[in-house]
Every structure is written in C-alpha cells, then in structure tokens.
C-alpha cells in the first residue's frame, strides 16, 4: 500500500512537471487529488485497513497529498507567469496607427464668442443682459430716440421697412431696447443689450445684417467722465493691456453731448509705429482705433419714459454702442466683414 502511494506520488510529480499550461494542471489536480482520484479513494477507504496499518498509510497518503498540492501551486504560479507574458506578447498593437476618432471638434461662431466676451465684461461691471425685438416699431427705433418724423437724422441710417405696416421696420441699432428697458425698470438702471441690427447697405465694409452691443447706465449724477471710465475698463478687458480711450465730439439724435470713441491701438500701443519708421497698419499710424458711438442720454429721450421715474432734472446717464463684427475684426485680424456670414467651416474652425 505504501508503495502504491509512492508510485502515485512519482507518477503525479512527473505529470505535473510535464504540464504545459494552467489548464493541464487543473486536469491533473482533478486526476490526482479530485473526488474520484486514487489517493482520495485510498484515504476514504482507510477505515477498512487493519488497525496497525491505518496510521502509517494515512500519514503517508496525507503527506503525499500535501506535497502534490504544493507542487501544483508552484507549477501553476510559474505557468501563469509565462502565460501572461505570452498573452502580452500576443496582444501587442501597432501603436503608430491613428487613434479611434471622436467626432470632430465643434466651434462657436466668432460673433457669439465676441458678444459673450463683451457681455461678460459688462456683467462684471454690474450690468444685466437684456434683449429686444429685431422687427421693431418706428416709435422705439426712431421717435422715442429723438428722431421725430421727417427729421433728417433718420436719413443717417438707411432703414428696411415692413410691407404690411409702414410703422414697422427692422431695427437699425440696438438702442430701441434702451426705451423698452426704461419702460420696464425704474432708475437706476444698468443694462447691456446684444443683438442683430439691419441697415440697407451692402459692400466690403457694410453688411445689411450685423451685430451690436449697447450699454445704458442711468441714475443720479452719472457723468460723461463715468462713460469714459466705463469704456476704459471694457476696452482694456477686450483688447488687453492698459488701454486708453479718447472721445471725439459727434452728433447722435439720442445723446447730448454725443461722442465717438477710440481705443489706443493694442498692436503698436498707441505709438502708430511697429518698429522705428514702420507704420502700424492696424491704426494706420494714428495710434487710435475707432470703436463706437456714445454719449449722455438726451433729456428728450428720458422725457419719453419720464412717467417711470426718468425725470431728466433728477437722473442722467450714458449710453454707448459698438459693432460686434468690428471688435472681432480688430481683435482677430479678419479683413472683410462678409467673412462672418460666409460661415465657411474652415474659417469657423480657426476660432477655438
């Protein structure tokens, strides 16, 4: 009996050493140590042996069983390690092949991006963003902005009119929203108005549809100097660095005094020159870049909303407006207004 146990041991050890895979080892475990294996049966039948043999056979069989289990484990660990390295070797890929494409990146339109940038700067200065209709009443676009019917100032902007109603037009500026806002909110009021506007004009520098941003601040004691300070903050944030602003007196029917405002050129820092003797092309050597129009809100305009607390003797303030496309053109070197409305994806994709 003991001899048979030794035979099983050497037979099993030989088989284990020859095993080539963990799967084979598992088969051997079943064959030599499983429920129906000879060694197991032998241990199970030990009670049938004579008393004096029981101890010897039992301990020999158990010893062999433990030895085999250990051997199996050792072998399994070795085989597993080599199997993993084989699978790693087999799993090797050509890392130089292109990655799985995600969908191509999308982009916001440069007009949206620029509008948001201006909005965000003004929000930081305490302004709310509001919007108004593009198909507008003559009253809001002209009359309440101090352009009485028949006034030549109406000729300054060539206007699209709506066929069904001669008193309805496409707004020529975002300024009608000033009146709508003041009708709705008593002073003080600080609002910024982005949106599409329309003028009957089309060439390299004019588009019949374009975008403006308008600012309005009305309260007690708000001055022209406050307008300049606000423009300094805003244009500095948009164009970067410490920008200067200058205001040139101008005429708009709905502001008095009225100004056009320039920002010091951010390319040449206002010097008009890029290197000694080389003229700055962005500002044409002037050192200043025209940005928009502004002024102190005309008392006549406040008169149209006086019932809502806008007594021109008690409150005053400023309004300013500028073209979004113009800001974007300056900021990003876009040469032609029409490029914004081509919507060429190759161009859209340049602005991340």
């Amino acid at each position, binding site marked *: 009996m003991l001899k048979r146990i030794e035979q099983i041991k050497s037979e099993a050890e030989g088989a284990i050493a020859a095993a080539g895979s963990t799967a084979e080892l598992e088969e051997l475990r079943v064959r030599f140590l499983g429920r129906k294996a000879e060694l197991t049966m032998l241990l199970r039948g030990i009670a049938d042996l004579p008393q004096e043999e029981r101890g010897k056979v039992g301990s020999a069989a158990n010893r062999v069983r433990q030895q085999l289990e250990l051997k199996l484990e050792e072998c399994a660990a070795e085989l597993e390690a080599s199997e993993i390295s084989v699978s790693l070797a087999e799993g090797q890929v050509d890392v130089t092949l292109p990655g799985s494409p995600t969908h191509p990146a999308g982009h916001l339109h440069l007009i949206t991006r620029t509008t948001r940038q201006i909005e965000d700067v003004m929000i930081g200065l305490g302004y709310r963003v509001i919007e108004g209709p593009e198909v507008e009443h003559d009253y809001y676009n002209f009359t309440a902005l101090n352009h009485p019917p028949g006034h030549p100032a109406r000729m300054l902007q060539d206007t699209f*009119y709506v066929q069904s109603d001669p008193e309805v037009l496409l707004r020529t500026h975002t300024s009608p929203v000033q009146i709508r806002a003041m009708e709705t909110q008593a002073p003080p009021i600080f609002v910024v108005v982005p949106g599409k506007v329309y003028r009957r004009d089309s060439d390299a520098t004019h588009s019949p549809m374009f975008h403006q941003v308008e600012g309005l601040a009305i309260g007690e004691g708000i001055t022209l100097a406050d307008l300049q300070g606000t423009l300094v903050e805003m244009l500095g944030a948009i164009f970067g660095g410490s920008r200067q602003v200058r205001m040139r007196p101008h005429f708009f029917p709905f502001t008095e005094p009225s100004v056009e405002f320039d920002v010091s050129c951010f390319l040449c820092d206002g010097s008009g020159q890029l290197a000694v003797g080389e003229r700055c092309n962005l500002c044409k050597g002037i050192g200043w870049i025209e940005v928009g129009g502004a002024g102190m809100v005309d008392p006549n305009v406040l008169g149209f909303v006086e019932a809502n607390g806008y007594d021109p003797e008690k409150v005053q303030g400023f309004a300013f407006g500028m073209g979004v496309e113009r800001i974007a053109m300056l900021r990003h070197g876009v040469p032609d207004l029409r490029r914004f409305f081509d919507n060429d994806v190759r161009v*859209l994709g340049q602005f991340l």
Partner: protein
Amino acid sequence: MKVPYSWLREYCDPGVEPGELAERLAMTGTEVERVGAVGPPSAENFVIGKVLAVEPHPDADRLQVCTVDAGGDRTIVCGAPNVAAGQTVPVALPGATMPGGQKLGKAKLRGVESNGMILSAAELELGEGPPGILVLDDDGLTPGSPLAEVLPIAEPVLELEVTPNRIDCFGVYGVAREVHAITSAPLGPEPWAEDAPADGNGDVGDYASVEVKVPALCPRFTARVFTNVKIGPSPVWLQARLTAAGQRPINNVVDITNYVMLLTAQPLHAFDLDKVPAGALTIRTATEGETMATLDGVERKLDPETVLVCDQNGPSGIAGIMGGQTSEVSEQTTRVLLEVANWNGTNILRSSRQLGLRSEASSRFEKQLHPDLCLRAQKIASQLMIDLCGAKLVPGTIDVAAEIPAPPSISLRAGRVEGLLGMRVEQADQIAYLERLGFGVEPDGDDLMVEVPADRHYDVTREVDVIEEVARVHGLDEHLPSTLPGSAGQMGGLSREQKLRRRLEDAMRDLGFDEVVGWSFTDPGLPARMNIPEGDPRATGVTLSNPLSVEQSVMRTTLLGSLLDVGKANLARDAERVALFESGRVYLPEGDSEEGPLGGGFPGEKAPSVVEPHRLGALAVGPMRPKSWRGGGEPADFFALKGVLEGLAARLGVELVFEAGEEPFLHSGRSASVSVEDTKIGWIGELHPAVCRAWDLDAATGFEVSLAPLVAGAVVGREDFVDITTFPAVLQDLAVVVPPEVPSARVRETVLAGGGELLRSAEVFDQYIGEQVGAGRKSLALRLEFRADDRTLTDEEVAELRSAIVAALKEIGGSIRD
C-alpha cells in the same frame, strides 16, 4: 463739405498746417475725412512770367518759340494760339510737378529746347477757363515771383464730414467761426456786413411780384432784380475756388449763386427775368398729376405735397431742390431775378426722397435753415453781381416772410457743466468759448443767460446743448477724467434663460457641431423649395417693402433654410461632411409670443408686431464620426441626431417626447415631432429627398426646436438630492416580444406604468427582429431599476412587480421572451 484752405484763411487763419487743423477739428466734433489737394501737389517752380517775344517755330507750324522773363529770360516752346508778346502768364519751370504727378523737365521740341511750360487754367486745375494759355491781369506782377501769390495753386482742401445738426458748417464762414472758436485765431468780419449800392432804375416792385400761398412751407421768400447783366465766364479766382470746392464753373451768374451758397450755407436761385412772364412768381404746392422738366433735363412727376415756384405758365422750379429749364439763365440773359428763400426742411426732405432727387441746395434746406440767412446771401450776391457781371441792382427787396421767431435765450446754471460732464470748466472759459462760437452771453446771478445765433437756432435749444458746446471747445481729449459710476447695489448678470441658452450652445459645440450665423432674410421661393405648402404658416414670412434684392426680401420662418444654404455652400467648397447648428431667431407674422426673451416676450409697453422665438437648429450631412481603420463613417441618420437632441435635453434635465410626425420637408418614415410634456417644441428627422435635391445634397438630417419651452422645463439649479446609497437598487433585464407596429416608447410607458413607483427607470437598450422571435414580432430588451427609499427590496417584492409588468404588457399584445 469741401473747404479750400485759402478761402478759409480769408476769414480765419489758424496759422497751422491743414493737417494740424484737421486733427483739432476732429477732436472738437467736425470730422475731416481727408485733406485733399487740387492743382499741382506743390507750388514750387510755378512762377509769374512775362512774354517778351514770340516767333514761329522753324520746323513746326503749330508751335511758337517764346522768350519769357520768368526771373531771368528763357526760351519756352508753346503750342497755344493765343500766346502773344506782352502777356503776363503762369509758367512752370523744369522741376515743377504737374497735377497728376508728372515731373517737368527740359525738353527738345522739334529741335528747339524748351525751358518750361506756359500753362492753361485747366492744366493748373483752376476750372475750365478760357481756351489756350491763361492770361493774367498785369497788376504790377513781378516776373519770377511765386505764382501761388496770385493764384490758388497747390491748394489744400479740407474735406469735412459735417454732422447734420451743424448746418452752419455747410458754409465756409461758419467753418471759419468754428476754427476761430477752437483755435482763438481772429475771425474776419461777416461778409454780409455791408449791403451793395442799389443804382438801378425804379423799384423792384416795378419788375417782379411774389405770392406765397403756402407760408408754412415757405417761411420766407426774398427776391432782388438786376439789370444790365453781362453773362460771361467768371474770373479765375472764382473759378478756382469753385473748382477746389467741387463745383463746376458755369457762368458768372450761376457761379455767384454757388459761391454765395458755399460761403453762407444759404442756397440761391437765379431766374432770367425776361423768361418770367410779368415777373410774377407764385409759391404753391403741386396739383395731382402735375409734371415739370428740371434743369437736368428729366421730366418729373410731382405729388401734392411738393412745393413749386411757378410763373404764370406753370412750374418753373421745384422749391429748394432744383430749378426748371423755362427760366434758366443763358448767354442772352440781361436781367436777373435772384431768389433767396427759406423752406420747411421736413417738407424738402420728404419731397427730395419722393422724387429721388437730392441737390446741394436740398441737402442744406432739408436740415432747416434759419430765415435770417436770406438777406445775408442777397447782400453778398448783390455786390458780386455788380463786380463780376457789371449789373445794376434795382432798389428794394421783395421779402415775403412769416413772423421770424426771436433767437431763444437759454439759462446755463452754475455747476451744470461739471454736473453733467464730470469735468470742471471755469465760468470765464465757458463764456469765452460761447462768445467765440457767436453766442451772446450775459451773467444772470451765478448762472449765465445764453443767446443763440440764427444759424444755430434749431441745433441749440436747451441747456444740455449749450453744455455740449462748452465741452467740445474745452477739449474732452485733454481734460475729461475717467471715473466709474457709483452703481452700488446693482447686480449684473445673465437671466436664467440666457445662461441655459449658453449651456445648450456650448453643448452643441462639444457634441461636434459648428455654429453658423445665417441671414435673417430669405427669398420668397424658399418655402416652395422646402416643400412647405401654401397655407402653412411658415410659407408666409414678414415681407420687406424695400429689400436690397428679392433674395433678401422675406424674414425667415425656419432656421432650416439658413442651415441648408450654409451646408450647401460648404459642401461646394469641398467639405466632406458638415455638422452645423444655429442659435437664432425666426420671425413669425402670426401667433403669440411666449414669456421671456427666448419666446419673444421682450420688455417694453408696446408688444412687438411679430413673434420672434429663439430656436436651436442643427443639420448634419455625412458622418458625425469620420471613417477610420476602426470603423465609423456612417452618415448621420435619424438616431444620430436624436442622440444629440437627447444629450441636450439631458443637460437640462428635461425629458423629450418623440412621436412619429410629418413635416413636409422631412422623410415621412424617419421623422418625429418633439415635445416637452404636452407642448410641441419642434421636429427632428432625415430630410425629404426632394428637399435634399433642391440643395444638391445626397442626404441630410436635422432638427429645430424652440428654446423657450425647452428651457422652461429645465431643472438645472432646482435639483433635489435623491438618496440612492442607503437602500440599493435591484437591476434586471426584461425581454419583451410585441407586434412590430407597437412603438418602443409605448412598451416603455407600459412597463413603467405596470412597475409602479418602485420601478425607477426602464430604458430600451436593444431591439431584435428575426427568426428567434418569429415572423410578425419584434423583441425589445429593457433595463429595469427597482428601488425603494425606505428599505431594501426583497426578491419576492421584485418578482411581484415583474408580474404586474407582464400583466400590463399583455394589454398591448406583449409577452416576455425567455
């Protein structure tokens, strides 16, 4: 407004280069478009010459060899037939640069060396002048002295962009006063200070009469009569000035009217009195259907609001806009009636637009001139008629005038300048600035009483207007500080709707779409190309009465049209695929606005006349994900875009309902209406083949939804915490076999209803159609999530819920597949 620099300097010489003055003008409110030049770019090498002798050229019949004293004798070959010994002439010496940039050198003309050139008026750009060389009056001119001393050559011209409120600056004297105000250089006396002597026969009433039938439209009409008029060309100095100011010289009388208008801003009109029957003029409005031929030779149809200057035979001119041919001044004219009138600006503007006719005169009248200007112009013109036409002024002036309002007085309160501007200007400076601008200023306690001059009458009417005058002369660029308003308590920000709109736009970008900005206007044929039938509200957009072109004459009612146009253009530019989106408005003539700006509910008392909802639209042509060695490259279909739209909704926490729906521009089997709860917000689908063909596309898929209802359903910022960790959920899969016509949404709803509130979600994750479920059936696989808030669900509880679900499914002909 073109202002020749020498003309300006006659009244106010700022003593600086034109460029420097231009900058100062720009900083005080008068933009200078450019400083142009007429004549040669430089006056150098242009001198006075005296012709000493003229001999025929030995080898050319048409040339003559002249000996000219031009500060030393020299030989000049000249081709003009009128050259003669004894003349004083303009000479260009070698080295001179001619107008146009050509540099003059010594030249051999048929073997004779010419040391310069004798010039005509045209060669100097001094107007058309007489043919041949220009012969100067010899008023003791020194040969060799600079030509610029007698003729305005190398004349700088300020091209001003005068704002419409500054009617005074449409005249050279007004500009001179402005220059005086901003530079303090002395201002010469007003050119109308003295009237001309009237030594004609009789009285003006003997020659002419004027009746004004429409005094409201013609506040003043003045007329003077001149006899013994000799028509001829104007002298060189006058032609030169007109030419530099952009006016073509015609004859002395017409030139005088133009000259006086350019000087005073007041237009004038000269009649040949002998062509005005009985010298009788009537000012009236046109009758219905009346026509007349204007000076430009065009027969004009008139409307009853147009004011006419008529003689006994009918209209002889359109008031303030253009004269007629009947009484035009000609070479035979000997007696002139000079009209200087004042017209209602609004009426002139209206008529000029109505006729499509704008002239130098109408562009001034439409801005409303002051009636005082009439006599100013009469006085200057009278003296010129006498001096240049040898005319006799008949005593008296016809002057038909409504009452002329007195100049207004305005109180400028102490402290108001600083209060409005935030910039201190000493009161003494305020007074000085206003006086230099021609205002009368009197102290009134601490305040100032300001009297407005006639030519600023309609521009400066209130205290704030006076403050503007002070501000701009004082100089904003040098003195205005930069401060910020005291806006304490003001909260800036975006509204919730605006924030969520940005979130959606950003999501579209992150999902791989390029944002486009389409035209708001489209062409009337667009609905037909999109298969939209007549009667559909989207077939009728807001139509413009004066579009730039038919292609841009109707406001869009969908974003899809814009997206298709942009898509097509990009594919034509060789793009292989596009994924586009637009966040913008459509314009609907009918319907109700929804609340908030995204629905067209804007602030203001007067509601907008059309509805402008904000929409989000998308269009994909070709694959969303490019083809690669790993697969991909399938064109975006219904489900690709539906996934995008569901992704958007998930970012707002909104659940969308998709139901098979029909839009005329969509594939009828691959399109759906999109709703939030019971509100329809838009559509999604693959485009109809006919629509694709109209835009040269093989296939395309898109969606368009209204943002207001989508954003209204958003839970962003209002989410409540849900405990999902204390009592774990039970996850199970369920395979349901149903007839093929039962939509998966119906199955899902049925499952959810059957499972009750402990069934937290049921999502369809697979569909199978094939042998294993048999013909006429389909199998759907759903992932179920059961969870209770207060306990861990037992297997028995879940089994019970599951049988309730199975029972519910039976109702719709469904069964469980094992």
